[in-house]
């Protein structure tokens, strides 16, 4: 009987109930959507700059990170590589040698990051060959180089042209060389695309006069969530008077910070959205309660306990709100999944300003059921709080006053 009354009361004012349900739906969809985009953007940012570039964990000579000069590089040894490879969950290691150099072509000069890599291995990490927009990928003993597309544009270089590089080598040697451009790669992170020069490890070691030298060992493993664990494991197994393993959070604290502060401002925006929705729902609940005070008073007068009456209004709220939340979740899932695979691509000014922050100008969503559930739950709590008002007003209702209306 109580449920029947509740159900019919919902359909008594169809328009208002539909508005209430839709506002709950909208709340869930908007909230999950915003959060999914937010987290998706971070995910992409980390993926581009970390997962597919620096790696989640790197091992360096212990002073290298403080002073990134080749003089703080390391001499490679089989035992070092073996120790790393035999660490639990570690699946591979990529040897890199990197340092800054000046690149010039005709009248243009620019600071670049020269990175010596193992062509085959890095291809599977950075997915470099797929990023080539012109020319071809290099092989192990290639003397040719790959350069970022923005750098190529700046230096007016094309495939087949030669690039002059000049910088500091190992132990005070001068590094100088002329390298043919074998290919142009488009790196997703714009700040990398603007300054990167890739060359095969051997070629780089020669250029820097540091045979068998390296600056960074990129540790490969499958699950990014293991970052901290693997970092700790490596540090406990390596000779820490010589080497040090670092997580990406330590290596790129500014990115972590940027994400965290952005996340906070996003969540604040969301809180404003929640507040608007809460007031909207509260408004309808308030109207509904005021309109029915006379009816409530009559029901109490003829002998209905206030608590029973309160349960009816609670049923009403729960039916409407859970309907809204279920529909909201139902709509959110396909939207979130769709925009994960077909992210929004920004263009024009917007794209430019996003690129300035070193991010790719696309907005994908993160597919996370946790986000959806969390938002749905938050909306549910808001609606329950809003539904508390009629309960409270029923328990406080003065029957005589109610009847006199």
């Amino acid at each position, binding site marked *: *009987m109580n449920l029947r009354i509740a159900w019919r*009361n919902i359909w008594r004012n169809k328009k208002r109930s539909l508005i209430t349900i839709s506002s709950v739906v909208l709340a869930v969809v908007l909230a999950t959507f915003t959060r999914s985009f937010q987290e998706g953007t971070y995910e992409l940012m980390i993926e581009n700059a970390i997962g597919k570039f620096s790696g989640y964990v790197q091992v360096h000579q212990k002073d290298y990170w403080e002073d990134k000069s080749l003089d703080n590089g390391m001499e490679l040894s089989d035992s070092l590589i073996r120790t790393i490879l035999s660490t639990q969950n570690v699946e591979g290691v990529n040897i890199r040698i990197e340092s800054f150099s000046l690149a010039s072509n005709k009248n243009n000069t620019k600071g670049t990051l020269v990175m010596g890599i193992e062509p085959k291995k890095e291809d599977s990490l950075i997915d470099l060959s797929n990023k080539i927009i012109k020319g071809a990928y290099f092989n192990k003993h290639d003397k040719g180089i790959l350069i970022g597309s923005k750098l190529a544009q700046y230096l007016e270089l094309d495939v087949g042209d030669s690039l002059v590089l000049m910088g500091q080598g190992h132990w005070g040697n001068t590094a100088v060389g002329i390298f043919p451009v074998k290919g142009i790669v488009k790196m997703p992170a714009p700040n990398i695309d603007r300054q990167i020069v890739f060359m095969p490890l051997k070629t780089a070691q020669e250029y820097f006069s540091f045979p068998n030298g390296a600056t960074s060992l990129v540790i490969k493993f499958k699950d990014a969530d293991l970052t901290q664990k693997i970092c700790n494991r490596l540090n406990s197994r390596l000779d820490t008077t010589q080497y040090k393993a670092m997580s990406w959070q330590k290596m790129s604290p500014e990115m972590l910070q940027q994400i965290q502060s952005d996340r906070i401002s996003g969540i604040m925006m969301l809180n404003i959205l929640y507040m608007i929705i809460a007031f909207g729902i509260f408004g309808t609940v308030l109207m509904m309660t005021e309109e029915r005070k006379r009816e409530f008073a*009559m029901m109490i007068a*003829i*002998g209905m*306990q206030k608590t029973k009456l309160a349960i009816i209004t609670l049923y009403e709220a729960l039916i409407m709100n859970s309907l809204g939340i279920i529909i909201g979740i139902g709509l959110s899932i396909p939207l979130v999944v769709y925009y994960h695979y077909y992210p929004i691509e920004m263009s024009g000014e917007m794209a430019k300003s996003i690129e300035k922050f070193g991010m790719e100008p696309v907005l994908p969503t993160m597919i996370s059921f946790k986000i959806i559930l969390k938002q749905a739950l938050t909306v549910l709590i808001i609606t329950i709080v809003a539904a508390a008002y009629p309960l409270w007003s029923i328990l406080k209702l003065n*029957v*005589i006053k109610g*009847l006199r209306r």
Partner: protein
Amino acid sequence: MSIIQIESLKKTYRETEVEVHAVNGIDLSFEAGEFAAIVGPSGSGKTTLLNLIGGLDSPTEGKIVINNTNISNLSASQIIDFRLWNIGFVFQAYNLIPVLTAKENVEFIMHLQGRKKQEREQRTKDLLTSVGLGNRLNSRPSQLSGGQQQRVAVARALASKPKFVLADEPTANLDSKSTENLLDIMEKLNREENITFIFSTHDARVVKKAHRVITIEDGKVVSDERK
């Protein structure tokens, strides 16, 4: 034996500076089977008196004993249950739950009492038939006329098998034909089933039908006549 005993009853409303003695020292008693009208001009205290008898309001002074229970001694939730089991109510208007049909409205109160479905259904049909609405069981209140709604309210008031029925100006919003019709039904129930009715009115035609007429003015009983 009287079912309702009222002794030196007073109700004072305090609104800002002014005190309104809505009920100002009333002694009355009602027997089972009465068909009593409380009459008096508007503002004389009829509604207040009925609300006090019905346990909807609590007196400033004096006491009301119903079936040996001093209702002032009951807690807020006990008094609600007391009303459910002992008193039938008919109000001026908006008596019914709008989302329920006539049948469901009558059944509703028995549902609150926890009566069995079979009993509920049988009794609902009987009661609605006896108020002349046997063919409108499934109509919603909005589909019924004012007079029909009041008849459903009477049926609902009786459904709980109360000791008596309180009706505050039950005909106030009805035309003369419906008024007569409602009164006839109430009188018939009183005569045939010995249902006790106490109702207020300022309608002379209604007063004529009453078996006892209690006149109040300024919160006091000025005459109490039995016919």
